[in-house]
């Protein structure tokens, strides 16, 4: 009985060690797998945690408002960054050095980095928005930056249209409403004529679907109308209008977006009608105003309002 039992016990023990060995190997394998997954994860948290706080570290200084009026080498500089606006922007989660490459330690090597940065401001966006960058470089504004900017012509770069530290998402009413003013800083005349059309009035008052500058001209692909590639060239204008006016015909596209009706440069019929109304309105309102005032004057003078003459 005992021998049998012993036998069975040792048999059990053998079975046990066998199982143990398997369990141990499985455990090791499990640990190895865990390491494979966890190490990169750990590595990631190791890199992101300090970088988020890097933003905060940068901001400990750059949130100081006096940096907004700093005198550096006899130059007035605005180095203030509004932390709230930054955190609310489309880039709120990016560490500062995602764009300010090279700024990784503080106190930083300001002078060298600044020089580096000044030349690559546009490039700062390229790393992440290559599509827009390539398109922009081929647009009229993009070529201007290269060729004409040295002659003093100011052409817009990414940050002129989007801002720097408060970049908004573009598919919002607020951003769409701001586009006319962005373009208007350099194309003021075009802005004021645009605002006289239904599109301009409606977008100003909050109709998001109304066309703004870039719906007709493109944003990063702006070209002169004379360029066949332009969204508004003879060949393309119809499909541009048809995005929102599916029933449009070629005649529809000859609506004039940028005219001042009271300017002699407007088509003669528009000009004549506008001037006619100007004169008519002044005449009718002046005559009506004088007639009314005299009537009231006589009414009061003769005591007609509350006296026996009236009701």
């Amino acid at each position, binding site marked *: 009985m005992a021998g049998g039992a012993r036998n069975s016990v040792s048999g059990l023990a053998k079975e046990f060690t066998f199982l143990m060995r398997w369990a141990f190997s499985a455990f090791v394998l499990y640990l190895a797998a865990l390491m494979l997954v966890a190490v990169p994860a750990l590595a990631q948290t190791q890199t992101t945690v300090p970088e988020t706080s890097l933003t905060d570290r940068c901001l400990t200084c750059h949130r100081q408002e006096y940096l907004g009026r700093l005198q550096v080498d006899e130059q007035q500089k605005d180095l203030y960054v509004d932390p709230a606006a930054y955190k609310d922007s489309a880039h709120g989660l990016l560490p500062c050095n995602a764009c300010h490459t090279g700024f990784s330690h503080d106190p930083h090597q300001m002078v060298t980095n600044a020089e580096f940065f000044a030349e690559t401001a546009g490039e700062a966006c390229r790393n992440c928005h290559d599509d827009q960058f390539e398109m922009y470089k081929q647009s009229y504004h993009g070529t201007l930056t290269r060729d004409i900017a040295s002659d003093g012509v100011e052409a817009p770069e990414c940050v002129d249209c989007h801002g720097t530290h408060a970049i908004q998402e573009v598919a919002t009413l607020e951003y769409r409403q701001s586009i006319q003013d962005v373009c208007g800083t350099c194309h003021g005349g075009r802005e004021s004529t645009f605002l006289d059309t*239904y599109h301009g009035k409606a977008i100003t008052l*909050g109709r998001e679907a109304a066309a703004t500058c870039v719906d007709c001209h493109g944003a990063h692909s702006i070209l002169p109308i004379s360029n066949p590639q332009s969204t508004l060239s003879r060949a393309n204008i119809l499909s541009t209008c048809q995005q929102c006016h599916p029933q449009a015909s070629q005649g529809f596209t*000859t609506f004039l977006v940028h005219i001042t009706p009271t300017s002699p440069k407007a088509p003669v019929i528009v000009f004549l009608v506008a001037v006619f*109304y100007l004169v008519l309105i002044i005449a*009718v*309102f002046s005559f009506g105003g004088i007639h009314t005032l005299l009537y009231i004057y006589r009414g009061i003078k003769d005591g007609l*309002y509350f006296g026996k003459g009236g009701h």
Partner: protein
Amino acid sequence: MTTGTVATEGVRLVYRRFSAFHRFNHYLVMTSFFGLVLTGLPLKFKDSYFSQQLMNAIGGVEAAGFIHRTSAVLNILYFVLEAGYMAWYVAARKGPIFSDDSIVPGKKDWQDMKGMFRWFFGRGPKPALNRFTYWEKFDYWALFAGTVLIGGSGLMMWFPEATTRILPGVTLNVALVIHSNEAFLATGVIFIFVHFFSAHGRPESFPADQVIFSGYLPVEHYVHERPLEYENRLKDGTLDQVVTLAPSPQRRRMFGWITAAVTVFAFLAATYTFLLIIWPLVF
């Protein structure tokens, strides 16, 4: 006329100036015009603080566009009815077309106007005015003709794609200039310079004239306000065509309330419009 103490309660006489048709048409043009002005002008004066507020209150530019178009249909209906009435009046020879009694302007209106100016300056008596005064004729025809222009241009802007299938795109530019300016002109004429003054501001109508809502006028006022028509009718013996018994006291009270309500609303709307327009000029 013997009036006052002699004509005791129950024997009140009134002069019937507007038929039910004309009163209906006035309601129609009045409501649609308020709707059109309040949803159109904010677009024209888009920079005004009050425009943005009004647009928000209405529910946005698209909702305003919907109200504008609904009101436009009513406004066009007024025009169709009025034009139809005119055609019928002329075709059926319902009355004289060129006479002191008609709405068509004539030489007498020019003389009346000169007479009124003499009166304003204290150089003569107030002229004996017709059934329709020159400013009433101006009001009537300006609105009628204005509706052709504003409605026509408005329809083009409503259906720009269809319009430019036939006409060039510059038509839409012209339509916008006409619509925008004509709207401004009409608003000024109606809300300030001519119509509201005529209906509320003149000594004869101050603070409100209910004749367009009730259709009648106490005979005493009629004699005083339209002396020439009265004389003519007396001569022709047509006075009994227009003088009838006053409506019941309940109806009189109802017309009084309607007039008061419309006056208050019109006053508020005109003040709002005025603020809306001058706001960008001041700030």
